[in-house]
């Protein structure tokens, strides 16, 4: 089926302030990255206990959301659901934009970003991190080709094939992202086979949440307004995916709680870890899953609010997983209580700094700027949505 799209003709009064804000965030992020590189990471809240902080939370969220944002396009191209076909180009564009934002933050945060060429020329084939860099850059290319098959009429017959390749690629990518943590045998808070599917489920939920927000945002700027039927369908899907995401977190903690040696990790994150239980129960479970589910299945027309909460909940989930997981003290001597000048035996603390917040925010700014640019230059958006579902 041919997709006839239009470019975005945004309302000036709303677009320029938004562009201004995104520009400020982007500039702030670049300035932060520059300062971090020239002065060293000691100006941030990251330290030798918490080496991956707020920038990484944002980057991982963006990368995970990128993979999930492709969901709408996949459902249309691969599974043939006609009603989503009009949204496929936007879905693909959002995926590329979100991934670019996340990757940019990761690269800017490196201790030696000037050595990116070294990273490209020397790759350790056993490193899941090295594999992820390949998967991320390849994702941009694969989805780029997928988008091209949608936009160029003559190539439409290849959309399904490209869609299958993109679907498989993004599943491998998200599995790889989860495995960055799941493969770490030496860290109790990370080592689990469940990490990979947990990230896949989180990507589906967060990706769709971000996509709904992008769609709503573009409507505010002058793009097509999604009809109630489409919103309800996307909303229901979001609810199911948010519940699935929580399911994997549940399985992870139940498994940890069951065995005496791993109970401590779960107790730390769910009960005794100070900020972490508050973020987990209040942020991830209540505001990130329970309230959105109520909004989506017990209320009408609250999809945007629900999507906002799911996305924030997803951000909190990654923060608890990544930073909470690092804060949990390593069990160097099981059965022994440890003390040292390096803080062994005690939980680590983390207070994010302004440079980190700006750097993380700039990832979102990059993603949104790329979406706006893509919609302005390419015929990404449908001119309007059908009132009757296909």
């Amino acid at each position, binding site marked *: 089926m041919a997709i006839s799209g239009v470019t975005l003709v945004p309302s000036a009064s709303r677009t320029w302030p938004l562009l201004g804000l995104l520009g400020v965030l982007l500039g702030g992020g670049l300035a932060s990255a520059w300062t971090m590189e020239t002065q060293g990471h000691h100006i941030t809240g990251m*330290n030798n206990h918490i080496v991956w902080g707020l920038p990484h939370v944002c980057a991982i969220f963006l990368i995970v959301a990128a993979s999930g944002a492709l969901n709408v396009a996949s459902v249309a191209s691969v599974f043939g659901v006609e009603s989503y076909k009009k949204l496929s180009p936007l879905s693909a564009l959002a995926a590329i934009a979100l991934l670019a934002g996340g990757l940019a933050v990761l690269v800017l945060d490196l*201790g030696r970003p000037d050595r990116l060429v070294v990273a490209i020329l*020397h790759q350790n084939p056993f490193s899941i*991190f090295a594999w992820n860099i390949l998967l991320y850059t390849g994702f941009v290319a694969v989805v780029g080709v997928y988008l091209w098959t949608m936009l160029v009429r003559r190539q439409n017959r290849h959309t399904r094939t490209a869609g299958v390749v993109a679907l498989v690629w993004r599943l491998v990518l998200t599995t790889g992202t989860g495995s960055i943590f799941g493969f770490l045998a030496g860290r109790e808070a990370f080592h689990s086979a469940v990490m990979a599917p947990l990230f896949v489920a989180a990507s589906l939920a967060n990706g769709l949440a971000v996509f709904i927000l992008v769609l709503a945002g573009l409507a505010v700027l002058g793009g097509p307004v999604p009809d109630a039927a489409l919103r309800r369908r996307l909303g229901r899907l979001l609810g199911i995916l948010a519940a699935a995401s929580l399911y994997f977190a549940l399985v992870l903690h139940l498994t940890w709680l069951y065995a005496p040696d791993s109970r401590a990790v779960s107790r730390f994150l769910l009960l005794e870890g100070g900020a972490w239980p508050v973020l987990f129960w209040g942020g991830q479970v209540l505001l990130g899953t329970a309230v959105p589910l109520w909004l989506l299945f017990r209320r009408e027309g609250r999809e945007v609010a629900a999507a906002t909460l799911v996305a924030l909940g997803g951000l909190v989930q990654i923060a608890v997983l990544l930073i909470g997981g690092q804060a949990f003290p390593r069990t160097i001597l099981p059965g022994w209580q440890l003390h040292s000048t390096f803080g062994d035996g005690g939980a680590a603390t983390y207070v994010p700094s302004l440079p980190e917040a700006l750097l993380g925010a700039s990832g979102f700014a990059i993603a949104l700027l790329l979406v706006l640019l893509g919609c302005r230059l390419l015929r990404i958006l449908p001119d309007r949505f059908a009132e009757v579902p296909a």
Partner: protein
Amino acid sequence: MSAGPTRRGLLAAAIAVAPGLFLVANAAPRPPGSAASARNRWDLLIDTTRCDAGCTACVDACRQEQGWGGPASDGPWIRKIEAIEMQTGRSVSLPLMCQHCAEPPCVEVCPTGASLRRADGIVLVDRHRCIGCRYCVMACPFAARFFVDAEVHDQRAATPRGKGTAEGCTLCVHRLDAGRLPACVEACAGGAMLFGDLLDPAAGISQALRARASTALRAELGLDAAIRYQGL
């Protein structure tokens, strides 16, 4: 060379009093300019019963030798851990540094191959290649890898270190390559640290490891560490 009773006695005293000193000379050092070889496997044996809770001689020697510890954010290449066995209340003091595993998680995860294991077992960071991603710091089960997050000045000539790269205990590789002992081993006044070549069956460390039980930290992870502890 005949080994009379006095000479044997001297030999025995040397093994007891100067741990490792005798043993490194035993293993013929590599010709200058030659690469590290798999015919050596450097090991360190720590007898925690001889390790004093208040003593930080090894830590101070390492700081002096390698030049870390100026800024507060520097990670400790070696640190003293005071441990209390929860079930029994027994307390033990031990130094903890990079365990120089034969299956190092830090080497496996490094995206550029900057984290490497030399043929003779020493795990190092090639700072020419390190991009400062800190994945190795995440992966280390012992928190023995650190990230340099501030400008470094006045580095030791034999130990380059710089902002934005990862680092950790090198087992004084610059000393080993010159046929000397690691600084911590030399500084240990209590004789708690024994260093030598595990692949030399005549070396003191090999004999000590065969004679008395020792453990590796987190042995269940299958890391095959080069650092072993007695008295735990």
